């Protein structure tokens, strides 16, 4: 593909192609598909954190007219036996949770029964009066109290990297002129996308299922159904056309999938099952994490030693891991590094990747500590980072495929006006408020996965590209459309993108910021393959000026196929289609990451965030009044949707820093603020000026598109920058997030 200055769509800012559907309420989410003769399910959740179910008194509610069935471990049919059948593509090590499997309660809010009735209201009511007897056992849920029981994980999920060690950190630190050692804590968080988790299962007369599920991976769910229920692929089609937010919550098959399919198969009926907002606090979470960071600098402000340890909880049955500490070994140059990472098994549900898993956490520890270190050494925090710039990935001892973090620093500082900052805390005011400026940044993997795509063009010049990726707000439909239109020289209106359906070519789960790189590359590849077929057809035309031309000799522009060197030598694409006599021309293709490049280079996106806060010191209130977030993430396919992702990341960072936390009452092992009134995320009034800027970064190694992904990198450093700004405003260093009113009093 040509550079963005020569492109028509790629790198530009077209509006979302699915926008009209979303703003008119016509976009269909999983619990909204109209299916005849639906029955409704309602889940009953465990009130205890650990124990056994002694008895489920289903008879009483089964007597209610309209109540169809109560599913529980007492009557669930024999299903797959081995753990591996329940393992999904992104499962961590251990034994996956099996809904309704046996009488054991492993965590509070565990689903223990599914009530099915003719209406939603009746199912809800019947569930509320279903009597269940439990034997309660002693549970343990407090990671802070049990942190000493942490153990280095043995397995973990795909992508987990054991903590890095190099040199001798203690020795490095002992040589330091200035040192700091601090502990940082943040509470549990839940993804809480706006759409409630739910599924509609269409049970067709021939026994086949169409499963509309809220998921970030239709193939991941289909695999699960195949293995757990022994269904063949043609019997279990999984569809997700629109997802009302995921943020990781839909990476793994959630229990609404299991329960709704179980009920549909057993009852031979179509069913709709929606969880409640309250039940969404039982779907996995960003774990409560305790971090310790130790830094030391030499006379020039150079880092001489770095230690970073993190401990968080996992469940008793799975060993959930995320990469919390490793970023600290690569973001800055440092010879002596010791990283540690431990998990504590507790009586909770398994944590689940949540937007920028690990890095969002680790960047709070590292980047607040870097600020503390800068102050200890008396160096401006941005200057301190520049002095410790890493030109090479020391973790893997590889060069970066590209890294424009210096330019990010320059651009961010310039846009924010960082040079006007006074170093001293409490030195800036506006009216009766203290003003603080803080900064921080982060690094995130630029990944690509294997994916397939299909393209077909009809005689009227309409192109359809498809790949079973997901659209959860990131703009996948739009990016697919842009790339296809660009590659085959068509207007975007002539292109239809299809995704989220297991009848389409396979794509990975939507996560890791890899979708644009992965599915984008697959779409580009399949359009190029289709282009070759079109060229051959064009060459068959009488007097074709393209005769003898190789694919690389031609380009597709404005509905024409033309010679690159002699652009006036062209044929009209639509004529090619018409003359060919074919109704439809198709191509398939699949892509995978280049293993050679992956071996040679460290591939990462970077960002830096500059924040202004105003603090009312008497009352402890904090307003984030200004944010500049500058990102270097390779090529940006769509400036508009990419900006929105980073804007959203900033809102997430504000949330992490100031308000978001699920609080557990350890006496009950239960999250107590499990609703949207008391689990606070920002509202419109919490958000003021946010500026997003992308630094141009060409990367020929990362993937054919040069895309690094931006769904996660934008979140990094936001919470740390706010924390640092609050210190600058008040002189008070808070090391426990969220930074609620009580912590500043």
């Amino acid at each position, binding site marked *: 593909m040509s550079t963005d200055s020569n492109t028509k769509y790629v790198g530009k800012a077209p509006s979302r192609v699915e926008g009209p559907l979303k703003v008119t309420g016509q976009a269909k989410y999983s619990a909204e598909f109209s299916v005849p003769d639906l029955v409704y399910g309602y889940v009953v959740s465990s009130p205890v954190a650990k124990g056994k179910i002694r008895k489920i008194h289903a008879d009483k509610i089964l007597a209610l007219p309209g109540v169809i069935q109560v599913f529980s471990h007492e009557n669930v049919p024999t299903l797959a036996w081995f753990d591996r059948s329940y393992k999904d593509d992104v499962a961590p090590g251990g034994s996956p949770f099996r809904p309704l499997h046996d009488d054991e309660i492993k965590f509070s809010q565990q689903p223990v029964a599914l009530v099915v009735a003719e209406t939603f209201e009746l199912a809800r009511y019947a569930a*509320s009066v279903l009597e269940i007897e439990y034997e309660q056992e002693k549970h343990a849920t407090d990671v802070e109290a049990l942190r000493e029981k942490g153990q280095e994980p043995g397995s973990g999920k795909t992508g987990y990297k054991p903590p890095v060690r190099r040199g001798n950190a203690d020795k490095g630190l002992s040589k330091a002129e200035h040192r700091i050692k601090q502990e940082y804590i943040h509470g549990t968080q839940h993804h809480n996308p706006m759409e409630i988790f739910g599924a509609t299962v269409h049970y067709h007369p021939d026994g086949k299922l169409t499963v509309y599920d809220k998921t970030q991976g239709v193939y991941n769910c289909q695999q699960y159904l195949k293995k757990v229920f022994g269904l063949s692929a043609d019997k279990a089609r999984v569809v997700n056309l629109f997802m009302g937010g995921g943020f990781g919550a839909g990476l793994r098959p959630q229990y609404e999938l299991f329960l709704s399919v179980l009920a549909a198969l057993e009852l031979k009926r179509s069913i709709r099952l929606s969880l409640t907002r309250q039940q969404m606090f039982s779907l996995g979470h960003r774990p409560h994490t305790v971090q310790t960071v130790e830094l030391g600098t030499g006379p020039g402000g150079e880092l001489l030693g770095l230690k970073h340890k993190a401990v968080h909880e996992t469940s008793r049955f799975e060993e959930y891991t995320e990469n919390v500490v490793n970023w600290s070994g690569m973001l800055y140059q440092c010879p002596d590094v010791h990283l540690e990472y431990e998990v504590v098994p507790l009586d909770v549900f398994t944590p689940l990747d949540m937007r920028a898993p690990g890095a969002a956490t680790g960047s709070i520890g590292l980047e607040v500590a870097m600020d503390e270190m800068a102050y200890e050494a008396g160096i401006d925090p941005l200057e301190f980072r520049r002095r410790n710039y890493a030109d090479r990935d020391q973790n893997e001892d590889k060069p970066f495929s590209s890294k424009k973090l210096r330019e990010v620093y320059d651009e961010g500082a310039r846009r924010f006006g960082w040079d006007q900052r006074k170093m001293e805390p409490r030195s800036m005011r506006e009216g009766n408020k203290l003003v603080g400026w803080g900064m921080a940044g982060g690094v995130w993997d630029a990944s690509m996965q294997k994916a397939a795509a299909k393209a077909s063009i009809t005689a009227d010049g309409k192109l359809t590209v498809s790949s079973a990726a997901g659209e959860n707000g990131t703009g996948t439909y739009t990016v697919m459309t842009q790339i296809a239109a660009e590659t085959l020289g068509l207007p975007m209106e002539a292109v239809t993108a299809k995704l989220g359906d297991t009848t389409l070519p396979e794509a990975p789960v939507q996560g890791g910021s890899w979708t644009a790189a992965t599915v984008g590359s697959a779409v580009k590849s399949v359009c190029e393959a289709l282009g070759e077929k079109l060229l051959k057809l064009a060459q068959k035309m009488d007097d074709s000026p393209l005769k003898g031309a190789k694919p690389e000799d031609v380009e597709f522009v404005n509905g024409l196929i033309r010679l690159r060197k002699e652009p006036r030598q062209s044929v009209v694409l639509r004529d090619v289609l018409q003359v060919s006599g074919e109704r439809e021309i198709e191509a398939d293709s699949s892509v995978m990451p280049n293993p050679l490049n992956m071996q040679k280079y460290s591939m990462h996106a970077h960002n830096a965030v500059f924040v202004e806060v105003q603090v009312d010191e008497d009352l402890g209130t904090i307003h984030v009044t200004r944010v500049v977030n500058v990102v270097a993430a390779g090529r940006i396919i769509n400036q508009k949707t990419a900006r929105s992702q980073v804007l959203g990341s900033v809102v997430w960072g504000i949330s992490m820093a100031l308000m978001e936390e699920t609080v557990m*009452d350890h006496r009950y092992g239960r999250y107590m603020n499990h609703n949207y009134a008391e689990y606070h995320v920002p*509202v419109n*009034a919490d958000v003021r000026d946010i500026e997003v800027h992308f630094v141009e970064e060409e990367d020929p190694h990362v993937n054919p598109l040069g895309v690094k992904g931006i769904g996660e990198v934008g979140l990094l450093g936001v919470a740390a920058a706010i924390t640092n700004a609050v210190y600058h405003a008040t002189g008070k260093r808070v090391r426990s997030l969220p930074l609620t009113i009580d912590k500043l009093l």
Partner: protein
Amino acid sequence: MNPFTLTRAASVDAAVRDFSGHEAAAYIGGGTNLLDLMKENVAHPQHLVGLNKLPLSSIESTTGGGLRLGATATNADTAWHAEVQQRYPLLSQAILAGASPQLRNMATNAGNLMQRTRCYYFYDTATPCNKREPGSGCAAIGGYNRIHAILGTSDSCIATHPSDMCVALAALEAVVQVQGPDGSRQIKFEDFHRLPEDAPERDNTLQAGELITSIDLPAQGFAENFAYLKLRDRQSYAFALVSVAVGLELDGNTIKEARLALGGVAHKPWRDKAAEHLLKGQPATEATFRKAAEAVLKEAKGQGTNDFKIELAKRAIVRALTQAAAGEQKASDVFTNSNP
């Protein structure tokens, strides 16, 4: 939510009769809290008496120079009513500091008084709660009680009343008009809500079947020197950790009349007459305000995670009194006032 029957009453008499004629009946106005609690399986009425057709939605002057707020007038219509905004800006702004525009469009004035606590344990049927299930115990004591009371608590309950509107109504000395099976009566606002004592299941002093018909404001509206200050976990659409309603009447720099009420700190809107007395006749200075703040919180008791509220309440009182004395909050500045 359990099944229930519903009738929409056409008159107050009919509503009261309908209520008395059914077992486990409840009145439903806007429904914003009742339906929430029914879905949470906390409230279990078997019959609802719908009030939204009653002729109780007007806002009109009373003979005594005050203002009568109809029971079924919405919170939004009340807050944006010209006379409320001009004469009782404290009330207007307290209402607008609460909930969201949508909820204020639904919630009625009477319903605002009747809303129940937001205590996590009250809402979660998996945990004990004396208010929800008398005798089961109070899980908030010794638990996660960040949003709980520091004043007027008992061994059986530390819940707070969540309203913003009611804090202003307490400061304004409103009077609640009710009608019940035994006729009508009026209840002074300070006597309407009650402290938990050993019966936290009872939020207020209404008798069974009694229906609020209006909330009457006396003539004195403190429109010149007032403040409503609300401290919460985000800038909007969150319940108060601490809120303060202040009305002052000044003679030069001397306080002639003072009203002071707190929200988010007790089982009822917490008006402190003794502190008001301390303010009267005193110069409007920080020292005076501090003295009053100390007095209000003298008996305060933290429960662990809400200890911070004691200091926060003191500071909020001083700030609100300072703002009120300075005439800093204006009736016209509807939005920015309450949010420091």
